[in-house]
């Protein structure tokens, strides 16, 4: 079977969005140890704030994107103070259900403010150039470049800064890092700032690639979950690799199976992966 370069390119674009989003979700899990079901709705909220600043206020798209990312970064911290902070000592399952309640609130807040139907970013209409037979749009290139920059940035943060090293330590062994003097609450603050910003960016990229809908983030959660699990839950490198893998597999599969089922590819990969490697592609058997 010859791979169609167009499909591979599409897969890399979708994979970028999944990889970035999965990285945010997995970082949050690493520090807070629960699956945040509302994460998809953080993504949607970031996308909608950017849309409002761009289409309703009329500021340039670049400014709007920054506004969306900052809003979610601060928003994630505020929501933590309002909600999650009061459940720190509870079980991960309780936190997961709390995040379901929060997801209900955010999603329906979006519907109440901006309506249930779809919106589009105000993008200039231009012919899509092609290179070596692959058609691409300016947005797609932007998504790829921004994703790579973000991934490199987070990598540098985790490798080179004190806070990043503390995050990795806490994610590896919570108890030990606490004993060695890592301030967990400070880490939580940083991880929401970073995770919220990443969620906002992921949502905006989703909106650039397609359109904005109140449930856009929730729908995107399934491939994001698949990426997180493939990579080993809480493992940043794995989440990114899982994201690109799922994205490319999803788009390339269109050549073989009906395109309606491309979302199933990630799921099947997930289930097969879990049965063969319960700790993820890069996970070590520690759990």
């Amino acid at each position, binding site marked *: 079977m010859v791979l169609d370069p167009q499909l591979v390119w599409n897969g890399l674009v979708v994979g970028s969005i999944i990889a970035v989003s999965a990285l945010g979700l997995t970082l949050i899990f690493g520090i807070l140890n*629960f699956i945040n079901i509302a994460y998809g709705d953080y993504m949607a909220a970031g996308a909608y704030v950017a849309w409002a600043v761009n289409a309703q206020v009329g500021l340039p798209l670049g400014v709007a994107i920054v506004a969306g990312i900052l809003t979610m970064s601060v928003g994630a911290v505020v929501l933590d103070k309002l909600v999650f902070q009061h*459940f720190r000592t509870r*079980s991960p*399952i309780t936190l997961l259900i709390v995040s379901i*309640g929060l997801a*209900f609130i955010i999603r329906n807040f979006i519907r109440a403010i901006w309506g249930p139907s779809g919106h589009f970013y105000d993008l200039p209409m231009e012919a899509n150039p092609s290179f070596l037979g692959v058609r691409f749009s300016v947005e797609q290139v932007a998504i790829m470049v921004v994703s790579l920059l973000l991934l490199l940035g987070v990598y540098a943060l985790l490798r080179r800064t004190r806070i990043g090293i503390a995050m990795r330590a806490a994610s590896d062994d919570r108890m030990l890092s606490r004993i060695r003097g890592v301030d967990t609450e400070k880490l939580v603050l940083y991880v929401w700032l970073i995770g919220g910003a990443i969620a906002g960016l992921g949502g905006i990229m989703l909106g650039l690639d397609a359109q904005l809908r109140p449930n856009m983030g929730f729908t995107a959660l399934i491939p994001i*979950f698949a990426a997180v699990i493939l990579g080993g839950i809480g493992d940043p490198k794995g989440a990114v690799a899982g994201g690109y893998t799922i994205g490319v597999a999803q788009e390339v599969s269109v050549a073989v199976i009906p395109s*309606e089922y491309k979302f199933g590819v990630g799921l099947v990969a997930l289930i097969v992966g*879990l049965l063969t490697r319960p700790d993820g592609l890069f996970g070590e058997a520690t759990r």
Partner: protein
Amino acid sequence: MALVDLLLVVGIIAGVYSLLAIGMNMHWGDTGLLNFAHAAFFAVGAYTSAILTTPPATGDLATRVVGFDFPILVGLLAGTALAGLVGVLIAITSVRLEGDYLAMVTLSSAELIRLMIHNEAWLTTGAQTLKNIPRPLSGMVSPGGTIPVSYDVFYFVLVWAIVGVCYLLFTRLSHSPFGRVLHAIRENDDVPLALGKNITTFKLKSFGIGAAIAGLAGGLWAHYVYAISSIMFLPSITFLIWAAVIIGGAGSYAGAIVGASVIVFLRQITRFIPGDVPFGDQLAYIRLMVVGAVLILVLYYRPEGLLGDAERLQAGTSE
């Protein structure tokens, strides 16, 4: 519509949701299993029963080629059985996983099933609605008929009779030796394991039975609403049922019924409010925000729920 008629409709929906919550309470309340595929079991029950009892439409718009004319009872029983089977199949792939993984895999599996329903038009009418689903005894029940009550009264009694039977059955099951093993699994896997119980088999049975009841709820739903479509079975249904079980009190079947009724009432309450109030257009969204807020507040102030058992809270906390 008079208030009584409205209450009957809300009551029927509450009954269907109560059955869903009873199934979920088997999974989470009794066994401590994180099932996020409930909407799919609901869908399998609804579609199975509908396909078995509704011949395919004819004409240009006919997309479905599979359809039968079996009695409704056959459809309901088949839907219950098939939903249970699907529950076991999903559980086989994932029941050995840790809680968080189980949540993500079951949620994803449910969406995969919905994707199939949405796309396999030859079987399910796909993206369109599957219409003309027959109502049980519809020819006999009418104010002037053999059974002289309005149809909603009849269906209300039918659904709540089934809820009552299920309540008794599941409460008994919960207190039986089988139920006690489930509770032991919920508290800590190692104890029943040490007693030589095959934990996986028990988990599969629990998953299957709970899913089957969700399938029965699906069948009852399909035969009441005439027409079903795949967007009725979004994951939000699963989350609402979770909210019902948590608010009612995990581990209590009476709690599951009360919780489901509270949730349905919260969702349907706007039907009783006149349309010219401020924010009238946003009411549908505001009430779901209220459900979310109630869920969080209950978890904070009364984690055992309205009728739950505080002792049960230890479940799933052992890392």
